[in-house]
């Protein structure tokens, strides 16, 4: 069995003007597609029997750097597409909305802290909102490392992930990463984030 590149749950242009169609196409087809192909090659080479990506990441210290990089890239992008939605944005709803308020004080404070984590990640990586044993936490990881990895120094179950590799925003925002981060808040799929929070 091999891992499949999931279809985007919306058109390439659906997230305009926040994320442009060309970026979405290259990001999904080439970057995510590349991680998927390379992950499958690594899984075969290393005779990894698990077909559960979360399980593989939780034990990633046992495998090669290829599995770490491409498995992380595969999982992180799967999550990223799901927590975006053309009709998203606004204030977080449901239990997650309440938990964000009680943990960070307000949605605005959450937004500030998350934006800071995303802006200050030097080089390539991801900013995260995770659930660690019922507690919400904000942080970031380098490259394609995931909070699910046993080797990560920032751990938890991902609820929201923001890709801050330059490939995620360079065609539209170039060096202006903060503008891309600001735009992200207009397309967060809070419904999906709530599902991930409760799971």
């Amino acid at each position, binding site marked *: 069995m091999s891992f499949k590149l999931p279809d985007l749950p919306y058109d390439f242009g659906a997230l305009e003007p926040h994320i442009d169609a060309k970026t979405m196409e*290259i990001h999904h087809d*080439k*970057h995510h597609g*590349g991680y998927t192909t390379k992950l499958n090659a690594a899984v075969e080479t290393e005779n990894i029997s698990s077909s559960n990506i979360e399980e593989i990441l939780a034990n990633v210290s046992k495998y090669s*750097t290829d599995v770490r*990089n491409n498995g992380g890239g595969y999982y992180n992008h799967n999550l990223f597409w799901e927590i975006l939605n053309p009709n998203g944005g606004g204030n977080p709803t449901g239990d997650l909305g309440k938990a964000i308020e009680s943990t960070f004080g307000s949605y605005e404070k959450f937004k500030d802290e998350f934006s800071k984590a995303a802006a200050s990640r*030097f*080089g*390539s*990586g991801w900013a995260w909102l995770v659930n660690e044993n019922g507690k919400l936490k904000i942080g970031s990881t*380098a*490259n*394609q490392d995931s909070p699910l990895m046993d080797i990560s120094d920032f751990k938890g179950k991902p609820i929201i992930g923001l890709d801050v*590799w*330059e*490939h995620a925003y*360079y*065609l539209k925002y*170039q*060096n202006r990463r903060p503008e891309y981060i600001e735009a992200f808040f207009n397309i967060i799929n809070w419904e999906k984030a709530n599902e991930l929070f409760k799971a």
Partner: protein
Amino acid sequence: MSFELPKLPYANDALAPHISENTINFHYGKHHKTYVDKLNGLVKGTEFENADLETIIKKADGGVFNNGAQVWNHTFYFEALSPKAKAKPEGKLLEAVEKTFGSFDQFIEDFSNAGATLFGSGWVWLVKNSDGALEIMQGANAENPIKDGYTPILTMDVWEHAYYLDTQNARPKYIENFFKVLDWRIIENRF
């Protein structure tokens, strides 16, 4: 005293079509400049306020190191490019390349491979070690071999911002283009 953005030794459009004017406008005009500006802000009132970049690379960490090293790395990168690039080294440098890598073509292959396989953001370096021999090194993010006692003679930026407007996900194509504007005359002088 403050750090300054050095002038480019060519016009922003001079390296086209290999590296586009648009890329140079952002890479030099925004990224390189922002590292200089941030560094000046960060060193104010610290022990590094009047330090040179080599000292910062050797002794600083965190934001001062990241921005200081990125200023140095970008200057070293842009300085070695030219619209009238010498395509191949001669003399002592060529001898050293052949001694270490077998041939100039093999060096290009090894260096290109190091560039293509560096995961995430970073730089690929050709350095002289303490015995005077050549080595290829990969460095993540702002890393610079001076910190570990090596003498850099060539660097290639493989942060996505160095090529994304021109070749997007196709980093190997950027690496090919890089060698078309890399001026070996300058690398010979550094060696």
